[in-house]
């Protein structure tokens, strides 16, 4: 496995003088090709900022991000991004929403329509291709957003707490579907979340960020077999790892310092 993303001493500072906030400080880690990595941390620890820096949406104050050896300075076409909210265009059908990246890049829509149908079908949206986003549930909308992010077969899939707004049951279902589709596409995935179980369930490695300033607290390899099943969540190894991560969070005063 080769290293696909190198995050090299990335820092991000917002504001100036007494309003100055150090969001991220000296973030350093690598993501290997084909790996599924979660960035875990409590709200406000800068994990979303880190993801946006990797995506090229925000410039770091110091340090750099290398994707396949080249520094990321702007959004790239070989990246897919799933936002916290579905961010669908209400006037477009489900199918046309999934095909938006194809249109933006002036590629042949008819050629990619088959791929879009396949992706949407895999996520149970076969009968909703011509529906509008307003007719779908939150979970279905986020599925469309994932299909949109995957339509051009990105080498890197970035996800910013995509299931944060969903209920627990839908969320577990979405986790399974995401893993299924990820294993079929073989893309490298970087997933931001504040949910320990979700991070462990999905990932090959979990990067734990501390808060204010955000630094890499620890990296936990997850030695659970794939394909992951919901039953894994109740196995000893899974529970042990979750507890270990939770303890690491408490130890640095992240969760515990709060009332």
């Amino acid at each position, binding site marked *: 496995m080769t290293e696909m993303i190198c995050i090299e001493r990335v820092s991000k500072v917002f504001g100036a003088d007494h309003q100055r906030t150090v969001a991220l400080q000296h973030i350093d880690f690598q993501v290997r090709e084909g790996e599924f990595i979660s960035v875990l941390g409590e709200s406000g620890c800068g994990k979303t900022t880190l993801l946006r820096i990797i*995506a090229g*949406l925000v410039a770091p104050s110091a340090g750099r991000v290398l994707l396949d050896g080249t520094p990321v300075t*702007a*959004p*790239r*076409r070989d*990246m897919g*991004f799933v*936002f916290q*909210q579905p*961010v669908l*265009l*209400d*006037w477009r059908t489900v199918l046309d929403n999934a095909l*938006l*990246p194809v*249109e*933006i*890049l002036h590629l042949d829509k008819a050629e990619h329509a088959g791929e879009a149908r396949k992706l949407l079908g895999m996520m149970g949206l076969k009968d909703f291709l011509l529906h*509008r986003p*307003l*007719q*779908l*549930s939150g979970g279905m909308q986020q599925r469309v957003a994932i299909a949109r992010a995957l339509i051009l077969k990105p080498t890197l899939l970035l996800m910013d707490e995509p299931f944060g707004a969903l209920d627990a049951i839908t969320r577990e279902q979405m986790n399974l579907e995401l893993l299924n589709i990820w294993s079929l596409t073989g893309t490298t995935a970087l997933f931001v979340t504040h949910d320990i179980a979700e991070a462990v369930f999905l990932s090959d490695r979990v990067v734990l960020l501390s808060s204010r300033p955000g630094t890499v607290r620890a990296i936990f390899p997850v030695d659970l077999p794939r394909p992951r099943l919901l039953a894994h969540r109740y196995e000893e190894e899974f529970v042990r790892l979750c507890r270990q991560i939770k303890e690491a969070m408490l130890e640095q005063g992240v969760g515990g310092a709060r009332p």
Partner: protein
Amino acid sequence: MTTDRTSQPPAAGPPGAPDHTTNGGAGPAAPTRWYLTPAGVRGLMAGSFVAFLLVWWGFVKVLHLSSLVLPTPLEVAGALAEGLRGPLWIHIWVTLQEIVLGFLLGSLLGVGLGTLIAHSELARRVLNPYLVASQAMPKLALAPIFVIWFGFGITPKVVIAALICFFPLLENTITGLNAVEETKLELFRMLTASRWQTFYKLRAPNALPFIFAGLRVAIVLSVVGAIVGEYVGANRGLGALIIATQGSFDTPIMFSVFVVLTVVGTVLYKIMEVLEKVLFGWRYLRREG
């Protein structure tokens, strides 16, 4: 239906009771929560209209008003029927042209300039003082000078109507184009969309409902502009006809023109509403189940 009526004492009441029906339509019907079938509602609407005409008629009769002051509904209907047999149509046609041309011209300019301003901070800063000033200025006050400039034909009316239509569209276009959620702009950045793509695939579709809201207001304002333009100087058109009947004390004909104007305005407004529903059906969609 009869049971529905009886369950609606205040509004449906006996048509002869003027106290209830004069302030009828909106007033007493609003707070009631009784169930009405659609047929019942239609019956109530028809009933209230009949009641309105009866009250009008009774008013004229009781006060012994001359038809010079207030003609009865029957006299107005007579004048309307007479007018529709021939002489009214040319006036309707002229005024309709002024309304539609003014509306199209003003809307196009409003959307065009609104787009420019929404995209260029420089244009906004340079043009804004003029726009504020001209918005504060009552446009109808300019009607006499347009007659001097453009004569007695339809041109000055088109210009006035256009001027009045211009502002709601300018405002709504700017608002609509800027009302895009930040996350959607970020999505387009992430997809490496060009500025132009962000405009026509995101900002413009997002602005369309706003623009249509402006068009609905503008079409009604355009009627006002055309009529007032005709008041100032015209020999044809519904506004000119009103002025002419004022001179000749033909009050029934004047009232028949009011009826025509109401119908014209309503039809134009409805057309815009239907267009909006057809184009933006998705806005009214809701989740199934």
